């Protein structure tokens, strides 16, 4: 997963039932949050965010992905095939720069999760 892009810092994968499959920090990179907190986050929070946005899916179509810009990192959530993947990346200067990376990653991640 980390080979997809050098800016990926952290990756987590969970089922849509809230089972955390893994959370993993890129080797050599210092985590901003404790691993236990990351694991608790993965249990429900991405599902909640995706679920909240899914309220408009009836009209707008399925939620494919969500990008969240924190002050220090960018988080990207993607849902496919009954699983939810979350990753954080180093910021790439501007939101446009982040979106370019996300657009590049999105397709690869979707196919990896299928």
């Amino acid at each position: 997963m980390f080979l997809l892009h050098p800016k990926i810092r952290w990756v987590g994968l969970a089922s849509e039932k809230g089972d955390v499959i893994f959370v993993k920090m890129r080797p050599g990179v210092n985590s901003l949050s404790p691993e236990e907190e990351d694991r608790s986050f993965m249990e429900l929070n991405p599902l909640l965010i995706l679920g909240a946005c899914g309220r408009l899916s009836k009209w707008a179509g399925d939620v494919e992905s969500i990008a969240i810009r924190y002050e220090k990192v960018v988080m990207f959530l993607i849902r496919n095939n009954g699983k939810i993947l979350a990753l954080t990346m180093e910021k790439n200067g501007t939101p446009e720069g982040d979106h370019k990376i996300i657009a590049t990653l999105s397709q690869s991640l979707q196919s990896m999760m299928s």
Partner: protein
Amino acid sequence: MSEGLVWDDEKGELRILGQRRVAFNVEALCEHLDSLVATSVAEVIMNNHEYRIGKRNAELLRTQKPEATVQEVIEQLSRAERQVGIGVVKVTLPRESTGAIDIEITNPCVKRTAGTAKALLATNWCGVLSSLFGGDFEAGNLTYHEAKNKITCKLSARRVRQT
């Protein structure tokens, strides 16, 4: 946990098994949660909550009554469910240790069998059984029998893949 239900009108306080509770419209809450996020997501939220509550209540009871048998713990928690207004709960343990555990709730407080309602009725018991027997349990085959005004479901051990 002390016995019984105490309603103190003067203090505006309701206590069940020694714990302060609040009576509210649970069906409206379930419907609202189901509408805020997808039903499947709302079910996971309620599952997460109820599982912890069930586990905590069983652990608390075990701490307070270490001599109590599994059957006695289940009976006391069933009585508590009846007192909080969930319905009349009957838990039947299987003869073989690997079999599913049957739950029957007569006159259930919610009748729907998906979303938060499903989790509200069944998942508390998954947490209780997890505390009593170890491992992880999940509810399946949740069915509402309209003629009998009864919900039945089966709880069985589940495997969670984690690394």
